[in-house]
């Protein structure tokens, strides 16, 4: 019994230290604005004034600049997109923002891989970002309870602690905090793409791509998101943000995605614009300067792309401005000659 008591005491001692360290790290992380996703205070400050929302994953987070939308459309926009954000989390964040803002337009960004995401895997970077965006610890715990498995709790804790440690480091070194004026946009520098142009060739045209991996529950959530928007008096617009020309070229089967999205949005009765098919894309976006990796726009790329999006939102674009299919778009690609 004495042995057991000593062991229990040592466990309690370790747990107390862990709890104290966790409180110190996460406390600072969630209550300061040092990281991209800890923007709950900013969004609370903007409550009642946001009338335009961009809701998507990393492609929109890195690709749509609210400041440009504000200037071009005369709106007060916010980009609430996040890295690998699950569809369920998008619905949750949208509900929050619709409830406290007079939102008129919601740009819903759907990428080629958005609808394949599931909560079956233990990897949940997107969930951690959403959790950081929630307002209270109660909301965070409720989200975790409803959406995450036990191993995912460990993953979220680990990610939050890592980011919390970075926040401490930023605080100690006096690094600048969150750029409030960016309003959720996360611009990144252009970086050399891992796939070199000379590597593009028939050998690389075999990467399979299939809509079979799309989950019906994600499509159902998209349907719900559209319904929520309409109930709140906001117009939903579904878009696909451009990926690099190289990625477009190596990923075959994108027309399946196009067909799927056209069908889905047709059923939902909302416009769908795939900017990978926008005819001007090959001139506007250059692989070496407009992208930070194969599938995400860089800051210069986002600043070039957002005015195009704004123009389409201002006035519904003529369908002739878009290619009919990926196959047609690729015929105009520089790599087609190879």
């Amino acid at each position, binding site marked *: 019994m004495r*042995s*057991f008591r000593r*062991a229990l005491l040592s466990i309690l001692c*370790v747990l107390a230290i862990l709890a104290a360290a966790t409180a110190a790290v996460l406390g600072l992380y969630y209550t300061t604005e040092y990281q991209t996703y800890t923007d709950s205070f900013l969004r609370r400050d903007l409550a009642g004034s946001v009338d335009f929302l961009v809701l998507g994953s990393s492609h929109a987070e890195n690709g749509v600049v609210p400041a440009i939308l504000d200037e071009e459309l005369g709106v007060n926009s916010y980009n609430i997109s996040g890295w690998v954000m699950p569809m369920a989390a998008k619905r949750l964040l949208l509900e929050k923002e619709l409830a406290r803002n007079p939102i008129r337009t919601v740009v819903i960004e759907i990428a080629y891989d958005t609808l394949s995401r599931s909560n079956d895997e*233990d990897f949940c970077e997107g969930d951690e970002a959403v959790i950081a965006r929630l307002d209270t610890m109660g909301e965070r715990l409720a989200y975790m309870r409803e959406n995450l498995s036990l191993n995912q709790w*460990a993953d979220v804790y*680990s990610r939050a*602690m890592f980011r919390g440690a970075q926040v401490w480091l930023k605080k100690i070194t006096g690094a600048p905090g969150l750029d409030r004026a960016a309003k959720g946009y996360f611009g990144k520098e252009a970086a050399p793409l891992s796939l070199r142009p000379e590597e593009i060739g028939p050998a690389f045209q075999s990467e399979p791509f299939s809509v079979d991996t799309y989950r019906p529950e994600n499509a159902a959530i998209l349907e719900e998101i559209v319904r929520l928007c309409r109930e709140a008096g906001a117009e939903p617009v579904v878009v696909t943000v451009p990926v690099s020309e190289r990625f477009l070229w190596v990923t075959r089967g994108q027309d399946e995605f196009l067909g799927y999205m056209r069908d889905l949005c047709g059923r939902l009765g909302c416009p769908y614009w795939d900017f990978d098919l926008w005819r001007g894309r090959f001139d506007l976006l250059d692989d070496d300067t407009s992208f930070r990796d194969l599938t995400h726009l860089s800051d210069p790329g986002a600043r070039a792309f957002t005015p195009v999006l704004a123009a389409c939102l201002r006035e519904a674009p003529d369908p002739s401005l878009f290619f009919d299919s990926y196959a047609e778009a690729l015929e105009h690609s520089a790599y087609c000659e190879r």
Partner: protein
Amino acid sequence: MQITSLVFVLFLCAVLAAYFLAPKKWQWVVLLAASLAFYCTYDVRHLAFVLFTSFSTWGATMAMARLDAAQKRYLGGEGKALSREDKAAYRAGVKKRKKRIMLLALLANLSILLVFKYFHFALEQVNRVLSIFRAGPLRDPFRFLAPLGLSFYTFQMLGYLLDSYWGNVAAERNPLKTLLFCSFFPQMTQGPISEFGQLSEQLFTGHGFTYRNWSWGSQRLVWGLFKKMVVADAFAPAVQRVFAQYGSYSGASAFLGILLYAVQIYADFSGYMDIMCGLCEIMGIRLTENFDRPYFSKSVAEYWRRWHISLGAWFKRYVYYPIGVSKWNRALGRSARARFGKRFGDMLPASVALVVVWLATGLWHGANWGYAVWGLLNGLFIILGLWLEPVWAACRAKLRVREDSRPWRTFQALRTFLLVAFIKVLPEVGSLRDGMGLWRRVFTGRSLPRGLRQLLPFVDWSSSFTAIHFFVACAGTAAMLAVSLLQRRRPVRSLTEKWPMPLRALLFAGVILLIAVFGVQNTWMGGGFLYAQF
């Protein structure tokens, strides 16, 4: 169930609680239930093979024990009056029947291993030959995933079977206890390969909770998680990059990649052992140690006595000795002695046995030519060490090298480490040709890296996240080295034992935090345990 997951930690807590709450008489039942439940989380269908191996071994050992008992009864009673020749003939008859039973069980169990692990490899070779004659390839009817831990538990049960046949251990009467010995979850999937006499008694007798066991065991368990999750898993993606892209690396980078793999596999395998030995220690069960600071070995032979000790011991006991004393090998030795002298005659049988052992060791690790060559290379260095020992001794005498001097010992350890690190990568890069390509790259990649990014091209510099994790793993490697150096005289835990409890708790919590912050993320990059594939 992933061993580095939160679910596994909770599983351990439940097992420990049930183990210590159960009456001592029934503790082994808790272990059996936990082991079967653990195995079923991987693939319940594969449990059939575990049951077959356990019960066939149990049946064989019991049958042999019955024959022994019947022989004893007969010769002590009715057979007392028999002549010496008749008694010998009776004993020979019993031995023959025992041998038949042993061989039947041995073949039955080995056949599962052979089919799952080697049939595909053998068929590939047959198809290669057939293709020379332009004949169509034969189809593989057994292309399933091998049951988890098959190589480990099969060898353990074969050891028990042979020990039982030789009369070294008494047969276990309870089939469920035999099943526990086969399926005991801390050692079933990656060893250590335990001897029945060493493990069974500890498994089947009850243990009370003691603070010392708890303290020492949990420290070792957490240290194992640190090695695996913070070090091995962080290095895994870098090593994979080295193996895939070494052709574009400088010699220095390729060399660092080889060292990185040596650290990764040690942290991975010894980390697993620490986790499982620590868990067993909490329960009062001492598993066979599998590592004894192997990278401080002074020769390849010593290295293999300190790395995966239980596998080396198994081969020594059940392959090397039987071959060494076999009639044909002794005859070979006698013939060699007559022709080439005493030393040659003594060394040849040992060398033949070593070649067989190391070829088998190579193929045990994987059914491909890369592992076969890897095994033979290890054997070659050991055999060369044996044969050339007089030459080395003469050289050392001539150069007046003091064998116990620190510089000499350091040189020997470094030389051995580099040698085994180079041999290790051979089967891992891909094909045998790729392995040799990596070796070649070390000596021919002459471009000089400018700066850290060029020296370490296998680090994903585009992500600060992975770069930070890589350097934390480097610091973790330094910590592992420091612990190994401290452990030369006594376990580090005996040092921390003297600290006040809050200080110990602080260190413990610090390591847990490192695992939580860095290790959990690394598991996505690191994948499973390297030795689980063997």
